[in-house]
């Protein structure tokens, strides 16, 4: 931008909302960081006097104490619940490993299961042509489920970030 402060005519157009988007964006970003131009933009706004006339509403006296009482006596804090759940899962995983023996035997057990499933499929001689659509359907359902889960998580993130 070729100016140190927004020129008057440009600022007037900005306040009126008649600037093209790209030009308005650069003016807005400048105003965000320049107190002098922000004050000029505010005073150029015909409604600024009316906005300046509005007094702060009084805060209900018991509101803060009510908030603090609910925070102190409320349900479990999510921040504490997440680590607790993590510890619980880790403990459950450790218990499974303990029962199975060790991680390598657990993996070899899983491998044996997969080989057994493969053997059964070969024994019953299910044609590959029949299995493929089933696999595709299962994969599509999994993908759809993952997409829905991701979108829900993103929605919550937007809400809470």
């Amino acid at each position: 931008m070729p100016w140190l402060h927004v020129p008057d005519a440009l600022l007037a157009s900005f306040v009126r909302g008649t600037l093209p988007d790209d030009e308005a964006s650069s003016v807005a970003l400048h105003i965000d960081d320049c107190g002098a131009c922000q004050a000029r933009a505010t005073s150029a706004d015909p409604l600024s006097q009316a906005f300046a006339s509005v007094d702060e509403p009084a805060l209900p006296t018991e509101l803060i104490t009510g908030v603090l009482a609910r925070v102190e006596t409320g349900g479990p804090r999510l921040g504490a619940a997440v680590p607790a759940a993590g510890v619980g899962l880790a403990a459950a995983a450790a218990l499974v490993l303990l029962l199975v023996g060790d991680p390598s035997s657990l993996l070899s057990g899983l491998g044996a299961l997969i080989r057994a499933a493969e053997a059964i499929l070969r024994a019953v001689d299910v044609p590959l042509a029949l299995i493929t659509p089933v696999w595709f359907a299962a994969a599509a359902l999994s993908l759809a489920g993952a997409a829905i889960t991701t979108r829900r998580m993103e929605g919550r993130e937007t809400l809470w970030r």
Partner: protein
Amino acid sequence: MAAPALRLHDAQNDEARWIDAARDGDPQAVAWLAERYTHTVYRFALRMMRNEQDAHDAAQETMVKVLRNLQRYDKRWRFQTWVLSIARNTCIDEFRRRKRKSYKEAPDIADDSPGPMELTSRRERASSLHTAMGDIPPMYREVLVLYHFEHLKYREIADLLDLPIGTVMNRIFRARKKLRTAYQVVTGDAAPAGAT
């Protein structure tokens, strides 16, 4: 009310320390955040919901969510922006849940008691603005409240609403136009001074 270790000479600059302490469960830090932000949230809720009881409930709900979920606060955001985003979502939820009150329903904040001319004029302007704000859709009222009353920057409003900055500006321009028209109707006047 501040703990000795946390006694701060400049609360604004040390806000991050209070937030960290509150995250660690320090009740005095939690109280400090409640003291500092409940008014901001109530002010926003009152201007959006236009009913004192609804604003009270929404503000309390918002602050409880804020203080119970400090672990979720992302420090890349200004804390006030994060708090206001939760206030906004809470107000929207309240609107949806209740559906019993019009956005236009408003507390009577105007004071009709006689006073000096300038003071009366100021009150009249404020009252007219309040009424006019009730006559524009919440989507537009929201950006005006955030910009003119909460003094958020354009990019902060864009972050809060999860919109591109150009969209935010367009919305503010349209909001001003609608408000100007509504204001003129309320005052039964020509455009306010300097209106174009």
